[in-house]
Structure formats: structure tokens, C-alpha cells
């Protein structure tokens, strides 16, 4: 088990994930944007395009405008997820001392570790709660239930288990895992060194969490999770710069036409219609 999940699978996962993403992006790029289906009102320049796509991608603008409850759930979920992914990278990378590296704030390494712990705990719980809410929506709201397929619910359950195991490691002291263990493991893996003997792999919770992540990454390119990239590809079709052709009619002089009384019958012109 340790050999499979800890030593062999990670390389397979990274390969399949990368190739899969490339395959999917290539598949999208192979089809063309045939007609101009930009949504109006028109965006006038690329700054506006960036602001629109950015506000949809990072603030979920449309959900905010049309369904506040969904916005709250989806935004919380993704915001917590983003922070947790970032937290994994900097937390393990700098052993929780990342905030001490920010200049001029005077944060001590000890304080940074505490902040790291606190943020990880908060976002871990938030993510779990937000996922629960999204699952509740799928089961309880008629119109959402009507669009939900079995796989949509299974994905949420899968993520709940994945996040749940992560939270157990963070919240239950007995199963807690030190940053150093993970960092050393990742470094060894990146250097293609044997890792099977490492202490980290003795944790059943870690192995479970790690396996679930790897399966997720392998399936990712073939699943609905690709909306991460899909949303940008779709927005790139419907949010583009468009300039209207200039108005103005050739050889039209309204003042002259009115002065000449065009359209006004000769007799009526005298009476003053």
C-alpha cells in the first residue's frame, strides 16, 4: 500500500493529469469560434473584457446578481478551496513560517505558525460546510434536483470525504501531521528518492487523503471539474470586444430637407400644418 500510493502512483497521477488536461484543451481548441456570438451590451476594450471575465471567475458576478444563496455557497466553497490549496503549498513549503517572510509586518515565525494553523482550520471547516450546503441544495431545491445527475451528488460526497479526512488530521491532535514530514516526503518524491520508509506514510488518514486526491486528479481532466478551465474558454467566446458600425446616413442633410419642406404638401405648407 505504501509503495503503491506513496511511491508509484504519484508519478502516474502527475503524468495522467498533465496529459489529460492537454488532451481536453486541445479538443476544445480544435473546434473554432465560427460566428460572432458576443453577448451585448458590448465590451469596448480588452480592459473591460479582463474585468468582466475576472469578476465572473473570481467574484462569481452572475451568481451574485441572480441567485444570492447560490452565490454565497459557491463563493465560500471556492474561496475556501483556493485558500486551502494555497495553504498546502506555502504551509508545507515554508513549514508554516510563510507570514514571517512578509517584510515590514514584524510577524515572528511562531506567530506565523499560529496564523497558518488558524487559517487552515477555519478554511477547512468552511469548505466542509459550504460543500454540505451545495449538496443540500441538490437534494432539496426542486429546480436544482431536476438538473442534478447522480454523478453531481457523488462528486460532492467525494469532496466531503476528502475534506473530512483532511479536517480530522488538522482537528484531532492524535492524528495531527507535522509540516516537516510532508515537506521531506515531497522533496524526496521530486528527487526520485525512495520514500516508502518515511514516517508520514504510517498515517492511515494521510494515505486515505492522499489516495483520494490522486484519484481526483486522474479523473479531473475527464470530468465536470474541468469547468475550472472551461469557464475561461466559454467566456472567451461570449465576452469579446465589439464596436458598432458608425451611424450616419450618406448624403442626408436634415436641416436642408426641412427647409425645403420635403413631404409637406404645397397647400398644407401655406396653411402651416
Amino acid at each position, binding site marked *: 500500500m505504501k509503495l503503491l500510493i506513496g511511491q508509484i502512483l504519484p508519478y502516474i497521477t502527475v503524468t495522467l493529469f498533465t496529459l489529460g488536461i492537454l488532451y481536453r484543451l486541445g479538443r476544445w481548441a480544435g473546434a473554432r469560434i465560427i460566428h460572432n456570438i458576443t453577448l451585448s451590451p458590448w465590451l469596448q476594450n480588452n480592459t473591460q473584457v479582463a474585468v468582466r471575465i475576472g469578476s465572473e471567475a473570481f467574484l462569481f458576478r*452572475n451568481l451574485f446578481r441572480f441567485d444570492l444563496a447560490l452565490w454565497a455557497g459557491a463563493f465560500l466553497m471556492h474561496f475556501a478551496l483556493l485558500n486551502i490549496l494555497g495553504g498546502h503549498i506555502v504551509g508545507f513549503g515554508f513549514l508554516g513560517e510563510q507570514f514571517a517572510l512578509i517584510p515590514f509586518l514584524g510577524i515572528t515565525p511562531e506567530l506565523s505558525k499560529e496564523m497558518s494553523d488558524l487559517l487552515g482550520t477555519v478554511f477547512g471547516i468552511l469548505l466542509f460546510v459550504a460543500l454540505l450546503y451545495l449538496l443540500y441544495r441538490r437534494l432539496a431545491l426542486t429546480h436544482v434536483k431536476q438538473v442534478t445527475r447522480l454523478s453531481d451528488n457523488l462528486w460532492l460526497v467525494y469532496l466531503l470525504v476528502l475534506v473530512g479526512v483532511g479536517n480530522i488530521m488538522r482537528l484531532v491532535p492524535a492524528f495531527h501531521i507535522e509540516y516537516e514530514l510532508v515537506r521531506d516526503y515531497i522533496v524526496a518524491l521530486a528527487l526520485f528518492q525512495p520514500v516508502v520508509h518515511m514516517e508520514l506514510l504510517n498515517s492511515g488518514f494521510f494515505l486515505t487523503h492522499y489516495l483520494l486526491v490522486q484519484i481526483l486528479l486522474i479523473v479531473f481532466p475527464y470530468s465536470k471539474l474541468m469547468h475550472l478551465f472551461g469557464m475561461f474558454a466559454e467566456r472567451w467566446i461570449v465576452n469579446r470586444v465589439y464596436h458598432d458600425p458608425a451611424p450616419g446616413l450618406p448624403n442626408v442633410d436634415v436641416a436642408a430637407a426641412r427647409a425645403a419642406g420635403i413631404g409637406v404638401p404645397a397647400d398644407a405648407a401655406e396653411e402651416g400644418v
Partner: protein
Amino acid sequence: MPEYKGMVQPVRATPEEMRKIHIEPVPDEQKPQKALEYLDQIRKKFRSFVMAMESCTKCGQCAENCHTYLGTRDPNNIPTNRAELIRKIYKRYFTLEGRWFGKLVGAEDISLDVIEQWYSYFYQCSQCRRCAHVCPFGIDTCEVTFIGRQILHWLGITPKLHASVGAAMEKVGNHTGLPKPGIVDTLEFMSEEIMDEFGVEVEFPVDKPDSDIMYIPSSADFLLNPYTLMGAGMFFTYIGANWTIPSTVTEAGNFGLLFDQYWTQRGNVMRLLNAAQELGVKKIVWGECGHGWRAAKMYIPSLADRPVRWPITHIHDEIADLIRKNELKLDPSKNSKPVTLHDPCNYVRACGLNENMRTIIRAVTTDFREMTPHGADNFCCGGGSAILFDDPEMYQRRILLSKKKAEQVRATGVGKNGDGILCAPCSICKAQLYPMVEEHELGVEVKGLVDLVGKALVWK
């Protein structure tokens, strides 16, 4: 065939009618296989379609934002579920997840029943793009129903209404089958009407060589919405324009957009370019027609088989421009009844006409009240994409599809005294709303925007 296994369906064109628009109907037993072939061919071409197939997360946001679902509460009328009718086939044959985990992700084998589902539900979609407008990713279900209808058309399944319009367009250049003598007669009659009602002399030049402006009216304006065409004639006369109407293209609409974006739509585009070249015009100005304006403004550049030498604008663009430059003398008190504006979907979500319509309506009316929501957020009239079917089952559907619009109009209060005006500057909206304002007893009269302009012009 008004129903198939409990699904409403528009009456279809007969095989003879399909042959008139160059389609040889595919026999039933070959339909599933052929449908797959066409789908495979088309999916490799349109990224807008691929993205709609592959990036939906089923968040459900589109449901309560679609007037067809709000009106019918039929789950298949939720935009993402409507797209799912084709997505389940797409998944089954063209994706790994569908091939390996079919049931789990809702993949399904192709069958005649599925094709019949397409026919029922793709022709309940108004292709209004409100779902694209509200979708967090911008997924455009309109692109899915366009392609669904295209595949159906190639299979030989097209509503009688759309097929006959396609045939008429090819034969005479307009949707109503009106030949040139009829056009000239009607226009002469309109000149007389204008003289009687407004006391001004307006001529409608047809095929006048060396005109500067070619005006493309909706053919419905000759019969159903005469005041729109009369308003346009008065406007062009008022500004002293050297204009003409081409007898070969007396049609702002292009039903090709709605059922056959290949031959039918392209044929109409080329017909227009021929007319512009023959008459030697400098600019093309479009009349009031929603889908037609989208087809002209957004699709001519990608469908024309030779360079387009003429700028094309909408008559609202030109009127609004002259209003901003203060060149038109308008008397808004000529339109003093309470007015509300129905934003045609194609104008506000696909053509950017939002502001110009408001510039005009504010200048020509005294009691203008906005609907909620309005502009790009507006709901469709329920007739969008010409699902104006008259057979009893589909007509009942149309009443349901216009329910949301009726609520919106009622909420403005313009029809409270039974003398309100519902300005709907699009021929399909007008055709849908004329009967629907009666069905829903809204106390309003449906009018175009150019109608109101014509009335408000001060000639002297």
C-alpha cells in the same frame, strides 16, 4: 403530429415541402445513425457547442431565469436540461466519462425517441440567450438548440412554419410570399394612408437605381405592422434621404438562423448582397426584426462568400443618432398614452441596441415606464425564434411561454385603464404579443418603436 408520447410538437413539413428547401428526408430507421453522424461532424466545428456540452456544472442557475421553465414548469425546459437532451448523446458517444460511466453521468444511447424529444423541446426554446446572460460561465444554450435544429433539419424534421418560410424566401425574397406587384401596391396604399392620417406626402421607392440607402423592412410590416413601415417611410422622407426598398429582399428576417444556418441562411445573405450591388447603394439600413437583425449584424460577416462593401446599421441606430444630434423635431405629446418597452432578446443580448431604443422612446413619448427587469436582463415574449405555431396544442404552449412577459407588463401598470401601449420593436415579438395581450388581458396595444417615431415627427 401535435403530440408524441406526451410531448407537444409543432406540425412538421411534409417530405415534398422539405424537398422544396433541398432536403431529402432520412427514413426513420436510419435517423438515429444519421443523427450521430451529423452530430459528430458539427461538434468538431463549433467551439460554442463543445463548451456547452463539456463545461456545465449543473448549478441550476438557468432554471428560474428561463421563461419557458417559469411558464411550463417542465423540467426539460430548464436550459441545461434542454441541452442535456443532446448532451446525454454527446457524452455517450464522444466522451470518456460517458463511455465508461454512462449511467452515472446520465449518458444515453441514441434512439428515435431522443430525436423526437429534440424536436419537441428545441422548438420550445426561444433562443433568447437569457440563460447565456445569467450563466456563471456564459454557456449559451441557444447554440445547442441551433445545432439541434440543424441536425433535425438535415434529418428532414422541420416545422411546417419554418420550412414554408424558407421556401418563400427562396422564391420571392420574403417570408410571406408577397410578390413585387403586391409590394408596390401595398406601399402605394400606405402612402395614401399616411396622407389621410398625417397629411404628409411620403413615397416608397422600390428598386430605385443609384439610391444611397437600401432599407430592409420586415415583410410582416406590409401586412401586420403597417405603422412600422409607414413610420420608416415618414422618417426617410423627413430627413430627405435618397432611399429605396429592394423588391428582391423585402425581408429583414432570416429564418435560416433558426433552422438551417448553412444553405438557407447563407442563401438569404447572398441575395441581400446581390441586391445591394445591383442598386448601387452606399449603406444598408435594417428594419424592426429581432432575429433578423442578429442574423444581419452578427452573421453576415461570417456567412458572406465575398467581401461585404456596405456598412449595415439598424434604423433605431440612425434615428437615435439624429435625436442625439438634435436634428429631428419630435412632439412626444403625440404619444401620450402610458408606454412600456419590451426589449427584444436579440436586440439587447445579441446586438447591443439597448441604449438606442431608450434614447428614441424617451424622445417620442410622454409617459414611458420601464419593466422589471429590463434591458439585457429582460425576459423573452415567448415567441422568440419564431415558435409562433398556430395548432391548438402549440398555441396553448405559447400562452404559457408568454406568462412571465404578461406578469412584467401587468406590473408596470400601463394597461390599467385599458389604453396602454406595449412597444415591442420586433416582428416576432409583435406576432406573439398581438394575440397574447388578449389572452392575458393586459389592456395594452402592441406597437413598434418606429410607429411612435412616425407619429411624433413635426413636419413644419
